[in-house]
């Protein structure tokens, strides 16, 4: 019998049966008017059973947390791994500019994580692997943003979609509706593999070596929920790029980056990747290190798996600030890291998924709706030429173009997104992608359709030009919604967009091609390091007031896959940043040498000179003279850092043993529901499954790779925990362990499963799981003591 959490479910409890047995009011927050079938049942038929089951589990976990049966830290990491994130003020208080207000939230002491009030709205992040979307998905995303959020879908710098101001109680419904169109929020947050990104031009790019889309797609699927990616100390980001020279993939700033390469082997062209590891932005940016000049395509997944295992095993877990893989690679050195990874690679048991997708990677995955016809003298609306100049990219396939839909600050309204889905149906097929520059592209547009497409976009307010120019400012959410935000990145971006848009027609071409990126803090979600002109939020004390500032970063390189990071130049008050942009760009236009890039220009005049140039902008009037400098963009409150909270980017470090113990609790809860509904047989079976999982959880402290096979778990548990008396109660002796073995024997003997037996089994399972928790706590404290002792010993030796 297999007892993997998902497998167990699939083998033993059918989703539809489960629906029958849950109490109606637990399942249905709403019903179709027909009253015959619930919406939940309808949606369940539209999604894979595994996904449906996962969402049911999450809903149960929510219920258990409300009953206080899941620790808040475990629940926090659980919800993060479902894409359910915290948001600013979710500690239940907000500074209103004069005083701190305690927010009226009826949940009382109930929390969804440390210092995170249950009823406080949160953010939900929706994974869009490689940014790929189809019209049906866009419509559902639009609907959900209206019903559960504030009517806006926000495209992130990792090609995800985010909603803000979502109540956690709504998330299971939201997830089901997404799952029904093939979208998951799973592992969008937390210490896991985040959304796998790829160049939005992959497959149609003129410079690509080959289309990386099928690899990004398969990689995303392979690593999602993979056991070897569940025990990281921090998040893990992967990017694919079709070529080395263009910036789209940004592989240099990723934990793992793969650039398409082809090599001749025995006269045959073979696909592979230039493979990088250990890059990352954040407070301490690192350029990724070359792991392998040519990694054959069939080695891509095994190596990713081996790296995951090494990261899980050797990566920092306690000090969150140094837990990304970039620190591990830096500490070990790339040579040693490579050696350990290759050693790990040799130990892996072959997995058919490593290569089975390769048979299809050469197939054309996309097709056009219409024949490719060039743009010939069609009537063009006013503004078309400017839009064409910045928002249209000629595909490698003649007659076809990629049209970029510029989204201001990455935002699109529900009405626009729905209308854009219709426009997509009119001009292309399922060939839509989000971009890391927070826009959306329509691929495979017949060039002759561009005037009609432009007019259609204008009708819904999405005909803005300037994609990928200095006007198209990228920004993270910053203080608008992020708990870590220091300054208003979106407020600044909005202001810069407005000012630069007004001047866009006058801008020198060299300036127009620059990029501005803004982060609300040093964590770099706005990717300020790789912008020509980057900013990140800080604060400074001026005249006794805390004043919002931005650190100015110049000279970052977007090209060459984020080939260089910008350097900090000066801290400037937030309200004076637009002057910085104008001054720096004006001087570049005036003094640049022929053909000189912005990076070279900054390098030539030197950081010292730039600092002098901006010196007067560091000063602001006194508060009495002009108080506006003491508040941030788009926020009239006097600036304060009071609202900053503890970020959830880092997630909670929760061991696999803790997760599995939580899963066993949830199963026991389900067993109780079966019992209440009179299905004693299922109650007995599920209660036993819960006990086996609790035993498996303990096994994971000793053998991370413990199998899901019931027999193996029981044998190893007996050997390692019972015979050694590790699982032993001072007063009850081995009684709790016997509950497990007795329950297993009874099932093997097809024992009767009446009400009495079921009740007894439920009670025994509860006691067994409680004992497992005690045992785990005992082991954890022993390990802590052991770590402290060895640290003390090391210190003594030092």
């Amino acid at each position, binding site marked *: 019998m297999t007892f993997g959490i998902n497998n167990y479910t699939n083998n033993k409890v059918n989703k539809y049966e489960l629906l029958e047995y849950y109490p109606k009011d637990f399942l249905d927050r709403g019903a179709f*008017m027909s009253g015959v079938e619930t919406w939940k049942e309808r949606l369940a038929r539209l999604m894979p059973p595994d996904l449906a089951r996962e969402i049911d589990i999450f809903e149960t976990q929510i219920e258990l947390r409300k009953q206080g049966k899941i620790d808040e830290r475990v629940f926090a990491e659980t919800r993060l791994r479902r894409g359910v994130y915290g948001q600013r003020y979710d500690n239940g208080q907000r500074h209103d500019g004069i005083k701190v207000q305690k927010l009226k939230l009826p949940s009382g002491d109930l929390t969804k994580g440390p210092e995170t009030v249950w009823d406080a709205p949160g953010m939900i992040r929706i994974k869009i692997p490689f940014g790929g979307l189809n019209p049906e998905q866009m419509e559902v995303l639009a609907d959900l943003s209206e019903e559960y959020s*504030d*009517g806006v879908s926000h495209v992130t710098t990792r090609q995800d979609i985010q909603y803000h101001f979502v109540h956690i109680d709504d998330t299971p*419904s939201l997830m089901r509706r997404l799952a029904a169109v093939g979208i998951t929020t799973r592992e969008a947050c937390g210490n896991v593999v985040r959304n796998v990104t790829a160049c939005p031009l992959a497959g149609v790019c003129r410079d690509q070596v080959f289309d990386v889309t099928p690899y990004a797609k398969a990689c995303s699927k392979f690593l999602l929920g993979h056991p070897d990616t569940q025990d990281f100390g921090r998040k893990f980001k992967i990017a694919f790029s079709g070529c080395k020279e263009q910036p789209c993939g940004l592989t240099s700033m990723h934990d793992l980056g793969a650039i398409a390469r082809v090599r001749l082997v025995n006269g045959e062209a073979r696909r592979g990747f230039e493979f990088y590891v250990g890059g990352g932005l954040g407070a301490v940016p690192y350029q990724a290190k070359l792991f392998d000049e040519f990694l054959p395509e069939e080695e891509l997944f095994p190596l990713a798996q081996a790296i995951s295992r090494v990261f899980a095993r050797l990566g920092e877990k306690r000090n969150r600030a140094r837990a990304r893989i970039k620190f591990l690679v830096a500490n070990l050195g790339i040579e040693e890291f490579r050696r350990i990874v290759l050693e790990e690679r040799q130990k892996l048991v072959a997995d058919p998924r490593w290569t089975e997708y390769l048979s299809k990677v050469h197939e054309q995955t996309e097709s056009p709706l219409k024949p490719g016809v060039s743009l010939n003298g069609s009537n063009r609306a006013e503004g078309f030429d400017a839009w064409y100049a910045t928002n249209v990219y000629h595909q490698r396939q003649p007659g076809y173009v990629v049209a970029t839909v510029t989204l201001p600050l990455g*935002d699109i*309204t529900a009405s626009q997104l729905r209308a854009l889905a219709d426009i997509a149906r009119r001009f292309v097929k399922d060939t839509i992608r989000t971009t890391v520059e927070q826009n959306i592209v329509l691929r495979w547009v017949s060039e002759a359709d561009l005037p009609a497409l432009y007019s259609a976009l204008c009708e819904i*307010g999405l005909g803005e030009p300037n994609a990928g120019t200095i006007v198209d400012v990228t920004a993270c959410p910053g203080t608008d919604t992020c708990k870590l935000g220091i300054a208003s990145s979106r407020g600044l971006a909005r202001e810069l967009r407005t000012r630069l848009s007004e001047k866009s027609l006058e801008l020198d071409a060299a300036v127009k091609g620059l990029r501005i990126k803004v982060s609300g803090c040093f964590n770099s979600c706005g990717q300020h390091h790789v912008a020509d002109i980057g900013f990140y939020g800080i604060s400074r004390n001026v005249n006794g007031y805390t004043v919002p500032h931005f650190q100015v970063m110049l000279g970052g390189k977007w090209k060459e896959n984020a080939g260089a990071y910008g350097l900090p130049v000066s801290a400037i008050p937030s309200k004076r940043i637009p002057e910085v942009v104008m001054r720096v760009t004006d001087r570049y236009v005036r003094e640049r040498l022929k053909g000189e890039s912005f990076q070279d220009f900054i390098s030539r005049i030197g950081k010292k000179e730039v600092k002098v140039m901006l010196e007067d902008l560091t000063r602001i009037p006194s508060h009495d003279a002009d108080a506006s400098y003491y508040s941030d963009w788009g926020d*009239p409150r006097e600036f304060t850092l009071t609202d900053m909270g503890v970020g959830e980017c880092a997630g909670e470090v929760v061991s696999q043993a803790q997760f599995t113990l939580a899963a066993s609790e949830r199963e026991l809860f389900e067993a109780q529901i079966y019992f209440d509904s009179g299905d004693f047989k299922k109650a007995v079976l599920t209660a036993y499954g819960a006990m086996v999982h609790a035993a498996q959880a303990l096994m994971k402290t000793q053998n991370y790779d413990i199998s899901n096979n019931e027999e193996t778990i029981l044998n190893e548990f007996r050997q390692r925990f019972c015979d050694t008396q590790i699982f032993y109660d001072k007063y009850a002796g081995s009684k709790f362990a016997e509950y497990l073995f007795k329950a297993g024997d009874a099932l093997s003997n097809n024992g009767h499963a009446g009400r009495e037996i079921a009740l007894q089994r439920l009670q025994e399972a509860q006691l067994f799981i409680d004992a497992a928790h005690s045992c785990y706590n005992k082991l954890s404290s022993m390990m802590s003591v052991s770590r402290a002792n060895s640290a003390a010993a090391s210190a003594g030796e030092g």
Partner: protein
Amino acid sequence: MDLQKINVKFFVTSRERIQLTDFIDIFNSWIQDSDGDYYDVADYSHMHAGPGILLISYEANISMDDTGNRLGLLYNRKQPLGGSNNEKLKFAFKTALEFCRRVENEPALRGRVRFRGDEVHFLINDRLVAPNTNEAFRAVKPELEGLARTLYGGAEFTLDHNSDPKQRFSVFIKTPRAFDVDTLLKNLGSRGDQLVGISVT
């Protein structure tokens, strides 16, 4: 049908001289005047025909909403309401109107914003509860008619329902007669600030 997630929008008489961004300051001042009722202000002034400026709270969002390129005050009830459908409708309309009145009386706007009472957009913001069908309209119609009769003091009115399945369930309630906010509130009876939910000062 159990009516929940009721949305009510009253449109401005004229959008000239109205800057959406003015409402960032106004809503922030409302927060300062309250006691933890409101969660935050969201600024979508950069978007075309978007949700505008929102005042977010646990129970409901209040916004100067520009959806459909039609500026108005939107009351978006998020948390369930108790009572009969008639009571819930009355509560939502009255609360929306109280907020309209507060905006009209807002000193910072110096009377630049007025709401028209001859048209109301009513929505149910939950496709799972209320798909946008003729069946749903037939179910809701009697209750909406009852509400509209009270709202317009017996004056003639129409209910326009467009059953586009992609849209949320919505009905435009229209009357040929002109009404101001105070009259509509008077027709509905008690003041909004005497009701449960978000306090309206």
